[in-house]
């Protein structure tokens, strides 16, 4: 018996539950109640409201990613410069919250923003339902996903390169911007992709924290499926999912391109 046969159960599984389900998005986008039609799909594509929501989602995802990078890079950098045993312990502390279900943590944030923080600061209104609150909780949810790849990259950095840079007369700032930062690009790329893609599709945070004022593209898709699904109408949601997938594809392609470029540069 050849060993490659061991992959066959998985290949069957993969076709049934990874490949076939993907086709359903395309099937239902153009098929309403058993008839092929472009009508629903076209309605969705020409709905200006949906494009505005998409634009806002991309903006918010962008903001989330940028803030995560700004907050996460120093964390990863400081950890990577610590003694290995200490850093190992502290990095575990950073990843432990990820193990508690994020719906529960988001729920706790809602309580804090709705009652505790306004009480403490003496505000009359709640802080939920603002764009700042949505952004903050999104950052909260995705920060570990940024720190993890950055820490992995930075801690594997060859320390002798830094010494070499110092020996050649560069000061700390110059060493950081000319040596450390370019070498950590792979970590930045995977961190950014790990934050940006889930941030566009996040629909729990806007629902729980935004009080429905800041519905993102994920919410629109969720609504389309949960409300219309009973009527057997998957067309609008499927079309929006295709648009979402295209966005994800573009952002991954851009990030990968960025990565390759820099790698080429560092070899030179």
């Amino acid at each position, binding site marked *: 018996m050849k060993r490659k046969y*061991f992959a066959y159960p998985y290949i069957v599984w993969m076709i049934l539950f990874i490949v076939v389900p993907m086709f359903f998005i395309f099937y239902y986008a153009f098929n309403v109640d058993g008839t092929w039609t472009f009508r629903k799909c076209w309605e969705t594509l020409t709905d200006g409201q949906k494009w505005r929501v998409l634009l806002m989602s991309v903006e918010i995802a962008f903001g989330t990613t940028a803030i995560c990078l700004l907050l996460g890079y120093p964390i990863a950098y400081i950890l990577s410069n610590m003694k290995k045993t200490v850093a190992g312990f502290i990095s575990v502390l950073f990843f432990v919250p990820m193990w508690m279900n*994020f719906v529960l943590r988001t729920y706790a944030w809602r309580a804090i923003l709705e009652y505790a923080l306004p009480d403490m600061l003496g505000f009359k209104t709640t802080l939920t339902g603002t764009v700042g609150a949505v952004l903050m909780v999104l950052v909260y949810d995705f920060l570990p996903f940024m720190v993890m790849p950055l820490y992995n990259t930075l801690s594997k950095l060859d320390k002798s390169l830094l010494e070499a840079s110092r020996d050649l007369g560069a000061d700390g700032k110059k060493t950081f911007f000319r040596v450390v930062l370019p070498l950590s690009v792979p970590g930045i790329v995977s961190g950014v992709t790990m934050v940006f893609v889930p941030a566009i599709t996040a629909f729990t945070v806007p629902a729980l924290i935004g009080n429905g004022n800041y519905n993102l593209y994920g919410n629109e898709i969720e609504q389309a499926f949960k409300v219309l699904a009973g009527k057997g109408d998957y067309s609008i949601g499927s079309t929006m999912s295709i648009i979402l997938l295209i966005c994800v594809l573009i952002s991954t392609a851009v990030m990968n391109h960025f990565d390759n470029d820099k790698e080429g540069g560092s070899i030179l």
Partner: protein
Amino acid sequence: MKKLGRSLKYVYLGFMLLFLYLPIIYLIVFSFNDFTTGSGRRISYSNLGKWNGCTLANYGTVFSGDAGSSLLLTLEIALVSSVIATVIGTAAAIGINSMRKRPRNVVVNVSQLPMVNPDLVTGITFMMLFAFVNGLLSKIGFQISDFAKLLIAHISFSIPYVIFSVLPRLKQSSDLLYEAALDLGCSPIQALLKAVIPDIMPGISSGFIMALTMSLDDFVVSYFVADRIQPLSVYIYSNTAHGAKGVNPALATIIFIPLVSMLLIVNLRRLAKEREYEIQNKKVKMKK
């Protein structure tokens, strides 16, 4: 100056850790809050911000209602799905590793799909698949149960994580091991079980842990796939979103404390081992 910079670093790390732990601490503190309101002694978790006094009552009622069955369902799905995913995934990795280059690339690339796909898309594709299949099956009076749907979905998104933690291990281990076992009279199955599997065990166990984590942490896929039964995350969401009555904060403590103690013990042990190793290394160096 240098000392100042150093303490500044610790202040920053401490501040960030506080940010990450604040909601968890908040829930744990409020799990001791008295939530009974009004004269009817009714319990309402919606005022999760007003301190009414200390009580342990929340821990008495933590598994009452749907919370207990939801937690049980989450644990069942997580355990069963990650065991099946580990078995299928490990076999797949062994198979993929001995494939020729072209088919191998195809399988590996398709396997990466669930990892890059947003959860939302994975969830709705499964929802549509099951709706379609159940539509066909209803003609012969048969339906896929919610439990089976959840199980299939969780296995599917877990398998790639198993494959990609076993594959690197297989690449490190030598092909000769398998052939040597065959030469020494093992049957192919025996050779795999007795020579190959023990060699790649670290990869298998980390794949299992990954699968378990993904399954325990999942909300989005379960939310779209299950109609009638609710895993814990879906239970929490449906009881908190859109002005619902709220969730018992004691649930957070019940989940979090065992998890944290387990993780810390495992990691502290590993750190202690590393430290021992380091000290021994130093001693060896000194002897030289």
